[in-house]
Protein backbone atom coordinates (compact mmCIF):
# COMPACT_ATOMS: atom_id res chain seq x y z
CA UNK A 1 0.00 0.00 0.00
CA UNK A 2 2.73 2.43 1.06
CA UNK A 3 4.78 1.31 -1.89
CA UNK A 4 1.96 1.92 -4.29
CA UNK A 5 1.22 5.41 -3.02
CA UNK A 6 4.90 6.28 -3.29
CA UNK A 7 4.94 5.13 -6.90
CA UNK A 8 1.79 7.09 -7.53
CA UNK A 9 3.24 10.22 -6.03
CA UNK A 10 6.32 9.86 -8.21
CA UNK A 11 4.17 9.52 -11.32
CA UNK A 12 2.20 12.62 -10.39
CA UNK A 13 5.36 14.72 -10.25
CA UNK A 14 5.76 17.03 -13.26
CA UNK A 15 9.34 15.78 -13.70
CA UNK A 16 8.28 12.17 -14.11
CA UNK A 17 7.07 12.41 -17.72
CA UNK A 18 10.23 14.13 -18.98
CA UNK A 19 12.36 11.66 -17.06
CA UNK A 20 10.68 8.70 -18.74
CA UNK A 21 10.94 10.34 -22.14
CA UNK A 22 14.66 10.93 -21.70
CA UNK A 23 15.16 7.29 -20.71
CA UNK A 24 13.17 6.13 -23.74
CA UNK A 25 15.25 8.31 -26.04
CA UNK A 26 18.50 6.95 -24.66
CA UNK A 27 17.31 3.33 -24.83
CA UNK A 28 15.98 3.66 -28.37
CA UNK A 29 19.03 5.47 -29.75
CA UNK A 30 21.45 3.10 -28.04
CA UNK A 31 19.65 0.01 -29.28
CA UNK A 32 19.76 1.29 -32.86
CA UNK A 33 23.29 2.61 -32.70
CA UNK A 34 25.44 1.50 -29.74
CA UNK A 35 27.84 4.35 -30.52
CA UNK A 36 25.28 6.62 -28.97
CA UNK A 37 26.66 5.90 -25.51
CA UNK A 38 30.30 6.08 -26.59
CA UNK A 39 32.45 8.47 -24.53
CA UNK A 40 33.14 10.54 -27.64
CA UNK A 41 29.48 11.04 -28.44
CA UNK A 42 28.55 11.81 -24.85
CA UNK A 43 31.36 14.34 -24.63
CA UNK A 44 30.27 16.01 -27.86
CA UNK A 45 26.64 16.15 -26.84
CA UNK A 46 27.43 17.66 -23.46
CA UNK A 47 29.46 20.55 -24.88
CA UNK A 48 26.69 22.42 -26.59
CA UNK A 49 23.94 21.15 -24.31
CA UNK A 50 25.17 23.05 -21.31
CA UNK A 51 25.53 26.32 -23.21
CA UNK A 52 21.84 26.41 -24.09
CA UNK A 53 21.16 24.86 -20.70
CA UNK A 54 22.57 27.87 -18.86
CA UNK A 55 19.98 30.08 -20.55
CA UNK A 56 17.21 27.57 -19.92
CA UNK A 57 17.96 27.51 -16.20
CA UNK A 58 17.61 31.28 -15.90
CA UNK A 59 14.56 31.25 -18.18
CA UNK A 60 12.95 28.75 -15.78
CA UNK A 61 13.07 31.27 -12.96
CA UNK A 62 11.78 34.06 -15.19
CA UNK A 63 8.94 31.94 -16.54
CA UNK A 64 8.00 30.79 -13.05
CA UNK A 65 7.56 34.48 -12.25
CA UNK A 66 5.14 34.68 -15.17
CA UNK A 67 7.32 36.33 -17.83
CA UNK A 68 9.63 35.18 -20.60
CA UNK A 69 12.39 36.71 -22.65
CA UNK A 70 12.57 36.33 -26.43
CA UNK A 71 15.76 38.38 -26.68
CA UNK A 72 18.07 35.76 -25.16
CA UNK A 73 19.16 34.46 -28.55
CA UNK A 74 20.07 37.95 -29.67
CA UNK A 75 21.95 38.63 -26.43
CA UNK A 76 23.73 35.29 -26.94
CA UNK A 77 25.07 36.65 -30.23
CA UNK A 78 25.56 40.26 -29.16
CA UNK A 79 27.49 39.86 -25.89
CA UNK A 80 30.52 38.01 -27.31
CA UNK A 81 30.68 40.61 -30.06
CA UNK A 82 30.84 43.33 -27.42
CA UNK A 83 33.45 41.50 -25.39
CA UNK A 84 35.74 40.68 -28.30
CA UNK A 85 35.39 44.11 -29.88
CA UNK A 86 36.38 45.80 -26.61
CA UNK A 87 39.30 43.41 -26.25
CA UNK A 88 40.51 43.37 -29.86
CA UNK A 89 40.44 47.15 -30.08
CA UNK A 90 42.62 47.29 -26.98
CA UNK A 91 39.99 49.25 -25.07
CA UNK A 92 39.80 46.84 -22.14
CA UNK A 93 41.68 43.76 -20.92
CA UNK A 94 39.74 40.55 -21.48
CA UNK A 95 38.57 40.22 -17.87
CA UNK A 96 37.07 43.70 -17.85
CA UNK A 97 35.61 43.24 -21.32
CA UNK A 98 33.94 40.08 -20.00
CA UNK A 99 32.47 41.93 -17.03
CA UNK A 100 31.40 44.81 -19.27
CA UNK A 101 29.59 42.44 -21.64
CA UNK A 102 27.76 40.79 -18.74
CA UNK A 103 26.79 44.15 -17.26
CA UNK A 104 25.56 45.37 -20.61
CA UNK A 105 23.45 42.23 -20.98
CA UNK A 106 22.03 42.72 -17.49
CA UNK A 107 21.22 46.29 -18.48
CA UNK A 108 19.35 45.00 -21.55
CA UNK A 109 17.34 42.76 -19.21
CA UNK A 110 16.80 45.72 -16.93
CA UNK A 111 15.28 47.77 -19.76
CA UNK A 112 13.02 44.89 -20.82
CA UNK A 113 12.01 44.43 -17.21
CA UNK A 114 11.18 48.11 -16.82
CA UNK A 115 8.94 48.03 -19.88
CA UNK A 116 7.15 44.95 -18.56
CA UNK A 117 6.78 45.92 -14.91
CA UNK A 118 6.36 49.69 -15.13
CA UNK A 119 4.57 50.17 -18.44
CA UNK A 120 2.66 46.88 -18.04
CA UNK A 121 3.40 45.78 -21.60
CA UNK A 122 3.33 41.99 -22.14
CA UNK A 123 6.81 40.48 -22.13
CA UNK A 124 6.14 38.90 -25.53
CA UNK A 125 5.98 42.33 -27.18
CA UNK A 126 8.72 43.97 -25.13
CA UNK A 127 11.29 41.23 -25.63
CA UNK A 128 10.38 40.79 -29.29
CA UNK A 129 11.24 44.45 -29.75
CA UNK A 130 14.39 43.99 -27.69
CA UNK A 131 15.38 40.99 -29.81
CA UNK A 132 15.38 43.19 -32.91
CA UNK A 133 17.21 46.06 -31.23
CA UNK A 134 19.95 43.82 -29.84
CA UNK A 135 20.39 41.69 -32.95
CA UNK A 136 20.33 44.79 -35.10
CA UNK A 137 23.01 46.42 -32.97
CA UNK A 138 25.21 43.32 -33.16
CA UNK A 139 24.95 43.29 -36.96
CA UNK A 140 25.46 47.03 -37.25
CA UNK A 141 28.60 47.32 -35.11
CA UNK A 142 30.25 44.35 -36.83
CA UNK A 143 29.03 45.02 -40.37
CA UNK A 144 27.82 41.45 -40.12
CA UNK A 145 31.30 39.96 -39.84
CA UNK A 146 32.49 37.64 -37.05
CA UNK A 147 34.95 39.01 -34.52
CA UNK A 148 38.39 37.48 -33.98
CA UNK A 149 38.72 35.43 -30.82
CA UNK A 150 41.79 33.35 -31.50
CA UNK A 151 44.07 35.15 -29.10
CA UNK A 152 41.94 33.79 -26.29
CA UNK A 153 43.93 30.60 -25.92
CA UNK A 154 46.41 31.83 -23.35
CA UNK A 155 43.86 33.74 -21.25
CA UNK A 156 43.05 32.31 -17.82
CA UNK A 157 39.44 33.45 -18.23
CA UNK A 158 39.04 31.26 -21.29
CA UNK A 159 40.45 28.31 -19.37
CA UNK A 160 38.10 28.87 -16.46
CA UNK A 161 35.07 29.16 -18.73
CA UNK A 162 35.66 26.48 -21.32
CA UNK A 163 38.97 24.79 -20.54
CA UNK A 164 38.74 21.07 -21.28
CA UNK A 165 39.88 18.20 -19.16
CA UNK A 166 39.95 14.46 -19.71
CA UNK A 167 38.14 12.35 -17.16
CA UNK A 168 38.83 8.76 -18.13
CA UNK A 169 37.69 8.38 -21.72
CA UNK A 170 35.50 11.52 -21.48
CA UNK A 171 36.60 14.91 -22.66
CA UNK A 172 34.72 17.41 -20.51
CA UNK A 173 34.61 21.18 -20.69
CA UNK A 174 34.54 23.55 -17.75
CA UNK A 175 31.17 24.80 -18.99
CA UNK A 176 29.64 21.53 -17.77
CA UNK A 177 30.84 22.37 -14.29
CA UNK A 178 29.27 25.83 -14.54
CA UNK A 179 26.00 24.34 -15.72
CA UNK A 180 25.87 21.95 -12.76
CA UNK A 181 26.76 24.71 -10.34
CA UNK A 182 24.12 27.08 -11.71
CA UNK A 183 21.50 24.31 -11.71
CA UNK A 184 22.17 23.57 -8.04
CA UNK A 185 22.11 27.24 -7.07
CA UNK A 186 18.91 27.96 -8.99
CA UNK A 187 17.23 24.84 -7.61
CA UNK A 188 18.12 26.06 -4.14
CA UNK A 189 16.83 29.56 -4.84
CA UNK A 190 13.54 28.40 -6.31
CA UNK A 191 12.63 25.73 -3.79
CA UNK A 192 14.33 26.72 -0.57
CA UNK A 193 14.54 30.47 -0.31
CA UNK A 194 12.24 33.32 0.49
CA UNK A 195 13.07 34.85 -2.88
CA UNK A 196 12.01 31.59 -4.53
CA UNK A 197 8.66 31.78 -2.79
CA UNK A 198 8.30 35.32 -4.14
CA UNK A 199 9.18 34.16 -7.66
CA UNK A 200 6.44 31.53 -7.59
CA UNK A 201 3.91 33.88 -6.02
CA UNK A 202 4.69 36.63 -8.56
CA UNK A 203 3.84 34.24 -11.36
CA UNK A 204 0.96 32.48 -9.67
CA UNK A 205 -1.07 35.41 -8.42
CA UNK A 206 0.70 38.77 -8.66
CA UNK A 207 -2.24 40.63 -7.10
CA UNK A 208 -2.29 38.47 -4.00
CA UNK A 209 1.50 38.53 -3.80
CA UNK A 210 1.78 42.30 -3.85
CA UNK A 211 -1.04 42.60 -1.32
CA UNK A 212 1.17 40.54 1.01
CA UNK A 213 4.04 42.96 0.55
CA UNK A 214 5.91 40.98 -2.11
CA UNK A 215 7.64 43.39 -4.49
CA UNK A 216 6.46 41.68 -7.67
CA UNK A 217 7.96 44.29 -10.01
CA UNK A 218 11.42 44.11 -8.49
CA UNK A 219 11.34 40.32 -8.40
CA UNK A 220 10.62 40.19 -12.13
CA UNK A 221 13.16 42.91 -12.88
CA UNK A 222 15.93 40.95 -11.15
CA UNK A 223 15.00 37.83 -13.12
CA UNK A 224 15.00 39.67 -16.45
CA UNK A 225 18.51 40.90 -15.65
CA UNK A 226 19.61 37.43 -14.56
CA UNK A 227 18.19 35.78 -17.67
CA UNK A 228 19.89 38.24 -19.98
CA UNK A 229 23.21 37.94 -18.15
CA UNK A 230 23.07 34.15 -18.38
CA UNK A 231 22.40 34.40 -22.12
CA UNK A 232 25.50 36.59 -22.34
CA UNK A 233 27.59 34.10 -20.36
CA UNK A 234 26.40 31.26 -22.59
CA UNK A 235 27.20 33.26 -25.72
CA UNK A 236 30.67 34.13 -24.48
CA UNK A 237 31.41 30.52 -23.54
CA UNK A 238 30.22 29.43 -26.97
CA UNK A 239 32.33 32.07 -28.72
CA UNK A 240 35.50 30.99 -26.94
CA UNK A 241 34.85 27.32 -27.65
CA UNK A 242 34.16 27.84 -31.35
CA UNK A 243 36.71 30.64 -31.71
CA UNK A 244 34.17 32.89 -33.37
CA UNK A 245 31.97 35.70 -32.19
CA UNK A 246 29.40 35.74 -34.93
CA UNK A 247 26.78 38.50 -34.69
CA UNK A 248 24.26 36.06 -36.15
CA UNK A 249 24.79 33.27 -33.67
CA UNK A 250 21.98 32.38 -31.30
CA UNK A 251 19.26 32.98 -33.88
CA UNK A 252 16.19 31.00 -32.87
CA UNK A 253 17.67 29.90 -29.54
CA UNK A 254 14.94 31.71 -27.61
CA UNK A 255 12.31 29.29 -28.84
CA UNK A 256 14.46 26.22 -28.26
CA UNK A 257 15.20 27.40 -24.72
CA UNK A 258 11.53 28.07 -23.97
CA UNK A 259 10.69 24.63 -25.38
CA UNK A 260 13.25 23.03 -23.04
CA UNK A 261 11.71 24.80 -20.07
CA UNK A 262 8.08 23.92 -20.79
CA UNK A 263 8.90 20.32 -21.72
CA UNK A 264 10.45 20.03 -18.28
CA UNK A 265 7.16 20.97 -16.67
CA UNK A 266 7.41 24.70 -15.94
CA UNK A 267 4.15 26.49 -16.64
CA UNK A 268 4.23 28.96 -19.54
CA UNK A 269 1.94 31.30 -17.62
CA UNK A 270 3.96 31.16 -14.43
CA UNK A 271 3.44 30.09 -10.86
CA UNK A 272 4.97 26.66 -11.17
CA UNK A 273 8.56 25.93 -12.12
CA UNK A 274 11.03 23.10 -11.81
CA UNK A 275 14.77 23.28 -12.27
CA UNK A 276 15.10 19.49 -12.33
CA UNK A 277 12.47 19.40 -15.06
CA UNK A 278 14.39 21.98 -17.08
CA UNK A 279 17.62 19.97 -16.80
CA UNK A 280 15.67 16.99 -18.16
CA UNK A 281 14.08 19.18 -20.86
CA UNK A 282 17.48 20.45 -21.94
CA UNK A 283 18.78 16.90 -22.33
CA UNK A 284 15.63 15.64 -24.04
CA UNK A 285 16.02 18.16 -26.88
CA UNK A 286 19.80 17.90 -27.22
CA UNK A 287 19.82 14.09 -27.04
CA UNK A 288 17.10 14.05 -29.68
CA UNK A 289 19.10 16.32 -31.95
CA UNK A 290 22.21 14.22 -31.55
CA UNK A 291 20.43 10.87 -31.61
CA UNK A 292 18.40 11.18 -34.77
CA UNK A 293 21.49 12.13 -36.74
CA UNK A 294 23.35 9.21 -35.25
CA UNK A 295 20.66 6.68 -36.20
CA UNK A 296 20.53 8.02 -39.74
CA UNK A 297 17.44 10.18 -39.78
CA UNK A 298 18.19 13.27 -41.88
CA UNK A 299 19.00 16.20 -39.61
CA UNK A 300 16.41 18.29 -41.41
CA UNK A 301 13.70 16.13 -39.82
CA UNK A 302 14.81 17.25 -36.37
CA UNK A 303 12.05 19.82 -35.95
CA UNK A 304 9.34 17.25 -36.61
CA UNK A 305 10.46 15.27 -33.59
CA UNK A 306 10.91 18.35 -31.43
CA UNK A 307 7.44 19.57 -32.31
CA UNK A 308 5.95 16.18 -31.53
CA UNK A 309 7.73 16.10 -28.18
CA UNK A 310 6.45 19.54 -27.27
CA UNK A 311 2.87 18.61 -28.17
CA UNK A 312 3.04 15.29 -26.33
CA UNK A 313 4.61 16.75 -23.23
CA UNK A 314 2.15 19.63 -23.09
CA UNK A 315 -0.76 17.18 -23.28
CA UNK A 316 0.79 15.33 -20.36
CA UNK A 317 1.55 18.37 -18.22
CA UNK A 318 -1.83 19.98 -18.74
CA UNK A 319 -3.53 16.68 -18.00
CA UNK A 320 -1.61 16.43 -14.74
CA UNK A 321 -2.38 20.04 -13.93
CA UNK A 322 -6.09 19.50 -14.40
CA UNK A 323 -6.03 16.44 -12.16
CA UNK A 324 -4.07 18.49 -9.67
CA UNK A 325 -6.65 21.28 -9.77
CA UNK A 326 -9.39 18.73 -9.23
CA UNK A 327 -7.55 17.70 -6.10
CA UNK A 328 -7.08 14.03 -6.96
Amino acid at each position, binding site marked *: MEQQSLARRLIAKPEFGPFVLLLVEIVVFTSINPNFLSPLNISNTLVFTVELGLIALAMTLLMTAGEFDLSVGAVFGFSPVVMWTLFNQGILPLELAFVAALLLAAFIGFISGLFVTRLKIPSFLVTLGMLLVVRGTALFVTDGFPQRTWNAGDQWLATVLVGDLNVGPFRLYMSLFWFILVAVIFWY*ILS*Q*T*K*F*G*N*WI*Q*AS*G*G*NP*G*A*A*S*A*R*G*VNVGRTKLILFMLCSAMAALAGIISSIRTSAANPNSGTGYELEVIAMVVIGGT*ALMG*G*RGTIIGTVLGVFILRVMRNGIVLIGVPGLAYNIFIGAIILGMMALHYGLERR*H*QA*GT
Partner: protein
Amino acid sequence: MTQDLVRMENITKFYGRVQALDNVTFNVKEKEIVGLLGDNGAGKSTLIKVLSGAVPSSSGSIHIRGKKVDINSTTDAIANGIETIYQDSALVTQLSIARNLFLGREPVTGPGILNRMDHAKMNQVAGDLLRRVGITKNIPTTTPISALSGGERQAVAIARAMYFDSDLIILDEPTNNLGVAETRGVLNFVRNARDRGHSCIFIAHNIHHVFQVVDRIVVMRQGTIVADDIDPKKTSVEEVELVITGMSDEELAAATV
Protein backbone atom coordinates in the same frame (compact mmCIF):
# COMPACT_ATOMS: atom_id res chain seq x y z
CA MET B 1 -19.59 49.82 25.28
CA THR B 2 -16.14 48.95 23.96
CA GLN B 3 -14.06 51.47 22.10
CA ASP B 4 -14.09 51.97 18.32
CA LEU B 5 -11.37 49.96 16.57
CA VAL B 6 -11.91 51.55 13.20
CA ARG B 7 -13.86 54.68 12.43
CA MET B 8 -14.41 55.98 8.90
CA GLU B 9 -15.63 59.57 8.98
CA ASN B 10 -17.53 61.47 6.30
CA ILE B 11 -16.27 59.29 3.49
CA THR B 12 -17.30 60.45 0.02
CA LYS B 13 -16.32 58.72 -3.19
CA PHE B 14 -16.94 59.75 -6.77
CA TYR B 15 -16.23 57.53 -9.76
CA GLY B 16 -16.08 60.29 -12.37
CA ARG B 17 -19.43 62.01 -11.92
CA VAL B 18 -21.10 59.05 -10.26
CA GLN B 19 -21.26 59.32 -6.51
CA ALA B 20 -20.74 55.92 -4.92
CA LEU B 21 -20.45 57.07 -1.30
CA ASP B 22 -22.13 60.10 0.17
CA ASN B 23 -20.70 61.29 3.48
CA VAL B 24 -20.59 57.87 5.08
CA THR B 25 -19.57 57.45 8.70
CA PHE B 26 -18.99 53.87 9.73
CA ASN B 27 -17.37 52.23 12.73
CA VAL B 28 -16.32 48.81 13.97
CA LYS B 29 -15.72 48.19 17.67
CA GLU B 30 -13.13 45.94 19.27
CA LYS B 31 -14.05 42.23 19.09
CA GLU B 32 -17.13 42.89 17.06
CA ILE B 33 -18.48 41.25 13.93
CA VAL B 34 -20.32 43.77 11.81
CA GLY B 35 -22.56 42.57 9.01
CA LEU B 36 -22.55 45.02 6.11
CA LEU B 37 -25.65 44.64 3.97
CA GLY B 38 -27.08 46.41 0.98
CA ASP B 39 -28.37 45.78 -2.50
CA ASN B 40 -26.07 45.75 -5.52
CA GLY B 41 -24.74 49.26 -6.04
CA ALA B 42 -25.54 50.34 -2.49
CA GLY B 43 -21.90 51.22 -1.94
CA LYS B 44 -20.73 48.48 0.41
CA SER B 45 -18.00 47.25 -1.92
CA THR B 46 -16.73 50.78 -2.45
CA LEU B 47 -16.70 51.41 1.28
CA ILE B 48 -14.66 48.24 1.84
CA LYS B 49 -12.31 49.10 -1.01
CA VAL B 50 -11.61 52.48 0.57
CA LEU B 51 -10.91 50.83 3.92
CA SER B 52 -8.67 48.14 2.42
CA GLY B 53 -6.69 50.63 0.32
CA ALA B 54 -7.87 49.32 -3.05
CA VAL B 55 -9.36 52.69 -4.07
CA PRO B 56 -8.76 56.17 -2.59
CA SER B 57 -11.68 58.10 -1.16
CA SER B 58 -12.56 61.50 -2.59
CA SER B 59 -12.82 62.97 0.90
CA GLY B 60 -13.12 61.88 4.50
CA SER B 61 -10.80 60.29 7.03
CA ILE B 62 -10.06 56.92 8.63
CA HIS B 63 -9.14 56.51 12.29
CA ILE B 64 -7.79 53.43 14.01
CA ARG B 65 -8.17 53.41 17.80
CA GLY B 66 -8.76 57.15 17.63
CA LYS B 67 -5.64 57.90 15.59
CA LYS B 68 -5.97 59.20 12.04
CA VAL B 69 -4.24 56.97 9.48
CA ASP B 70 -3.48 57.27 5.78
CA ILE B 71 -4.45 54.23 3.75
CA ASN B 72 -3.32 54.62 0.15
CA SER B 73 -2.62 51.00 -0.78
CA THR B 74 -3.48 47.48 0.28
CA THR B 75 -0.03 47.27 1.84
CA ASP B 76 -0.83 50.31 4.01
CA ALA B 77 -4.05 48.66 5.12
CA ILE B 78 -2.28 45.43 6.09
CA ALA B 79 0.38 47.42 7.94
CA ASN B 80 -2.45 49.07 9.88
CA GLY B 81 -3.90 45.70 10.80
CA ILE B 82 -6.69 45.62 8.23
CA GLU B 83 -6.85 42.42 6.23
CA THR B 84 -9.31 41.91 3.39
CA ILE B 85 -10.20 38.44 2.23
CA TYR B 86 -11.76 38.26 -1.20
CA GLN B 87 -13.32 35.10 -2.48
CA ASP B 88 -10.38 33.63 -4.31
CA SER B 89 -7.89 36.32 -5.05
CA ALA B 90 -6.00 36.37 -1.77
CA LEU B 91 -4.10 33.10 -2.20
CA VAL B 92 -1.57 31.76 -4.68
CA THR B 93 -3.16 28.49 -5.71
CA GLN B 94 0.09 26.88 -6.88
CA LEU B 95 1.79 27.34 -3.53
CA SER B 96 1.33 25.22 -0.42
CA ILE B 97 -0.73 26.24 2.59
CA ALA B 98 2.38 27.02 4.63
CA ARG B 99 3.98 29.04 1.82
CA ASN B 100 0.79 31.07 1.41
CA LEU B 101 0.40 31.71 5.12
CA PHE B 102 3.86 33.24 5.31
CA LEU B 103 3.99 34.85 1.87
CA GLY B 104 5.79 38.17 2.10
CA ARG B 105 6.86 37.50 5.71
CA GLU B 106 8.65 34.17 5.41
CA PRO B 107 10.77 33.32 8.44
CA VAL B 108 14.38 32.63 7.44
CA THR B 109 16.96 30.47 9.15
CA GLY B 110 20.72 30.18 9.01
CA PRO B 111 23.12 32.78 7.59
CA GLY B 112 21.31 35.73 6.04
CA ILE B 113 23.01 35.43 2.69
CA LEU B 114 21.48 31.98 2.13
CA ASN B 115 17.99 33.48 2.47
CA ARG B 116 16.72 30.03 3.46
CA MET B 117 13.09 29.70 4.51
CA ASP B 118 12.48 28.03 7.84
CA HIS B 119 10.30 25.23 6.43
CA ALA B 120 10.06 23.40 9.75
CA LYS B 121 8.75 26.43 11.58
CA MET B 122 6.39 27.37 8.75
CA ASN B 123 4.82 23.91 8.62
CA GLN B 124 4.52 23.64 12.38
CA VAL B 125 2.91 27.08 12.83
CA ALA B 126 0.65 26.48 9.83
CA GLY B 127 -0.58 23.21 11.34
CA ASP B 128 -1.34 24.93 14.66
CA LEU B 129 -3.15 27.74 12.87
CA LEU B 130 -5.38 25.42 10.88
CA ARG B 131 -6.46 23.74 14.11
CA ARG B 132 -6.98 27.10 15.80
CA VAL B 133 -9.18 28.39 13.03
CA GLY B 134 -11.26 25.27 13.38
CA ILE B 135 -10.21 22.84 10.65
CA THR B 136 -10.62 19.41 12.12
CA LYS B 137 -9.60 17.41 9.06
CA ASN B 138 -5.89 16.56 9.02
CA ILE B 139 -4.56 18.39 5.97
CA PRO B 140 -0.76 18.40 5.41
CA THR B 141 0.43 22.00 5.33
CA THR B 142 2.45 21.24 2.21
CA THR B 143 -0.77 20.74 0.23
CA PRO B 144 -1.13 23.29 -2.58
CA ILE B 145 -4.12 25.61 -2.29
CA SER B 146 -5.43 24.30 -5.63
CA ALA B 147 -6.23 21.00 -3.91
CA LEU B 148 -8.37 22.64 -1.22
CA SER B 149 -12.11 23.26 -1.18
CA GLY B 150 -13.55 26.76 -1.17
CA GLY B 151 -14.22 26.64 2.55
CA GLU B 152 -10.72 25.42 3.34
CA ARG B 153 -9.29 28.26 1.28
CA GLN B 154 -11.28 30.75 3.33
CA ALA B 155 -9.94 29.08 6.45
CA VAL B 156 -6.35 29.52 5.27
CA ALA B 157 -6.96 33.19 4.51
CA ILE B 158 -8.62 33.77 7.88
CA ALA B 159 -5.85 31.86 9.67
CA ARG B 160 -3.27 34.07 8.01
CA ALA B 161 -5.06 37.23 9.11
CA MET B 162 -5.25 35.88 12.66
CA TYR B 163 -1.60 34.92 12.81
CA PHE B 164 -0.36 38.28 11.62
CA ASP B 165 -2.46 40.05 14.24
CA SER B 166 -4.83 41.76 11.89
CA ASP B 167 -7.15 43.69 14.18
CA LEU B 168 -9.84 43.85 11.54
CA ILE B 169 -10.61 41.07 9.07
CA ILE B 170 -12.87 42.02 6.19
CA LEU B 171 -14.64 39.09 4.55
CA ASP B 172 -16.18 39.88 1.18
CA GLU B 173 -18.76 37.23 0.27
CA PRO B 174 -16.92 34.44 2.12
CA THR B 175 -19.81 32.03 1.78
CA ASN B 176 -20.44 32.47 -1.94
CA ASN B 177 -20.47 29.20 -3.85
CA LEU B 178 -20.04 27.15 -0.68
CA GLY B 179 -22.08 24.15 0.36
CA VAL B 180 -24.04 23.97 3.60
CA ALA B 181 -21.36 22.21 5.65
CA GLU B 182 -18.61 24.42 4.25
CA THR B 183 -20.60 27.55 5.02
CA ARG B 184 -21.09 26.40 8.59
CA GLY B 185 -17.33 25.89 8.78
CA VAL B 186 -16.54 29.39 7.53
CA LEU B 187 -19.04 30.93 9.99
CA ASN B 188 -17.25 29.00 12.71
CA PHE B 189 -13.86 30.33 11.59
CA VAL B 190 -15.24 33.85 11.82
CA ARG B 191 -16.59 33.28 15.33
CA ASN B 192 -13.27 31.77 16.41
CA ALA B 193 -11.46 34.81 15.08
CA ARG B 194 -13.76 37.12 17.05
CA ASP B 195 -13.32 35.08 20.24
CA ARG B 196 -9.58 35.49 19.88
CA GLY B 197 -9.87 39.24 19.79
CA HIS B 198 -10.21 40.09 16.08
CA SER B 199 -12.96 42.31 14.72
CA CYS B 200 -14.62 41.42 11.44
CA ILE B 201 -16.69 43.01 8.73
CA PHE B 202 -18.84 40.38 7.10
CA ILE B 203 -20.38 41.03 3.71
CA ALA B 204 -22.72 38.48 2.17
CA HIS B 205 -25.72 38.40 -0.10
CA ASN B 206 -27.21 35.63 1.96
CA ILE B 207 -28.80 37.48 4.87
CA HIS B 208 -29.32 34.24 6.78
CA HIS B 209 -25.56 33.65 6.90
CA VAL B 210 -25.07 37.18 8.17
CA PHE B 211 -27.68 36.70 10.87
CA GLN B 212 -25.99 33.56 12.14
CA VAL B 213 -22.70 35.21 12.90
CA VAL B 214 -22.74 38.98 13.34
CA ASP B 215 -23.15 41.15 16.44
CA ARG B 216 -24.49 44.18 14.61
CA ILE B 217 -25.90 44.87 11.17
CA VAL B 218 -25.23 47.99 9.12
CA VAL B 219 -27.36 48.59 6.02
CA MET B 220 -26.37 50.76 3.07
CA ARG B 221 -28.58 52.11 0.34
CA GLN B 222 -27.64 54.43 -2.54
CA GLY B 223 -24.27 55.37 -1.11
CA THR B 224 -25.39 56.16 2.42
CA ILE B 225 -25.86 54.24 5.63
CA VAL B 226 -29.57 53.94 6.39
CA ALA B 227 -29.31 51.84 9.53
CA ASP B 228 -26.22 51.20 11.58
CA ASP B 229 -27.26 49.52 14.78
CA ILE B 230 -29.55 46.63 13.96
CA ASP B 231 -29.31 43.85 16.54
CA PRO B 232 -29.78 40.52 14.75
CA LYS B 233 -31.13 38.98 17.94
CA LYS B 234 -33.98 41.46 18.16
CA THR B 235 -34.77 41.88 14.48
CA SER B 236 -36.19 39.54 11.87
CA VAL B 237 -34.68 38.82 8.47
CA GLU B 238 -37.78 40.28 6.83
CA GLU B 239 -37.43 43.56 8.66
CA VAL B 240 -33.83 43.88 7.54
CA GLU B 241 -34.83 43.09 3.97
CA LEU B 242 -37.20 46.01 4.10
CA VAL B 243 -34.46 48.31 5.24
CA ILE B 244 -32.22 47.09 2.44
CA THR B 245 -34.74 47.67 -0.30
CA GLY B 246 -36.20 50.77 1.36
CA MET B 247 -39.72 49.75 0.47
CA SER B 248 -42.78 49.22 2.57
CA ASP B 249 -44.54 45.86 2.51
CA GLU B 250 -47.03 47.07 -0.06
CA GLU B 251 -44.37 48.53 -2.32
CA LEU B 252 -42.33 45.34 -2.11
CA ALA B 253 -45.36 43.23 -2.93
CA ALA B 254 -46.13 45.47 -5.88
CA ALA B 255 -42.55 45.33 -7.11
CA THR B 256 -42.31 41.54 -7.00
CA VAL B 257 -45.56 40.94 -8.86
